[in-house]
């Protein structure tokens, strides 16, 4: 029976020389292409994830907007000379008195 060292010496070259252990030409190019793809991927993923989140929020935001507009329209009405948009946005009717009241609230001691 051969000793391990002799066996390794005998089999080593046979195993070592049996096959060509090299990659196909262009290996480094293929590696760099993959690295570029993988390093750029997170940026693309982030922007598409943000886009998906935005699309998910759009119907909710639209529903809230409609509900608030309806509430404002029902609460204030358009009888006081307001436009539909002003009423929908819940703005107070603008009159000479309210303008003066606003002016006084900004003047020194206006709120006293």
């Amino acid at each position, binding site marked *: 029976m051969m000793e391990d060292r002799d066996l*390794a010496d005998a089999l080593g070259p046979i195993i070592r020389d049996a*096959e060509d252990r090299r990659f196909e030409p262009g290996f480094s190019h293929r590696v*760099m292409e993959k690295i570029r793809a993988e390093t750029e991927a997170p940026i693309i993923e982030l922007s598409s994830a943000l886009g998906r989140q935005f699309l998910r929020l759009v119907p909710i935001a639209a529903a809230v907007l409609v509900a608030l507009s309806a509430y404002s329209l029902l609460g204030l009405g358009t009888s006081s000379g307001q436009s539909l948009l002003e009423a929908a946005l819940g703005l107070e009717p603008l009159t000479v008195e309210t303008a003066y009241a606003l002016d006084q609230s900004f003047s020194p001691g206006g709120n006293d």
Partner: protein
Amino acid sequence: MMNDRIPDADLLERARGGDHAAFRTLVERYENVVAATVIGMLGPGAEAEDVGQETFIRFYAALTRFREEASLKTYLTRIAINLSLNALKRRKRFLSLHVESDLMDTIERDPGAGQEDRAESREVRETVRSAIDRLAPKQKAVVTLRLIDGYSTRETAEILGVPEGTVLSRLSRALKKLQPHLQPLMEA
């Protein structure tokens, strides 16, 4: 192409700063080291190419963590051998799930078609590949590192994270398993 005489440490520093050309030079410098390991473990073919690429991608991801205490060659070999062992596990799982046992040997011994060698050298290659593929993955790793890559027992132990005695006993068992299959080539 970047100068081959630029030290690894300089290329590493530049690669860490995002210099792709520097990293590419490192890939070119060490691709044969990685190829010897992964093809030694898996045989030639697409699987070895994938594992080779993955080795460098993992290395790229770990660039900032790599401290030059270990040599780059040893570090890359360690990644390559671990990924090859994982690939062998996946291969075994796939074969046991999808392939009849009598076909397993044929597939495991696929030498990687497409190379027009002389019949004799092809026969030698297939005999050696077939013999290596009969080894357990851990024995295969020791044979690859010691006999193909030429690492010492101590280096092999370091790469595999096992004691030197374990390397020696695995190698001994592997050699005894290989001997009957490679005997005709030893006598030739």
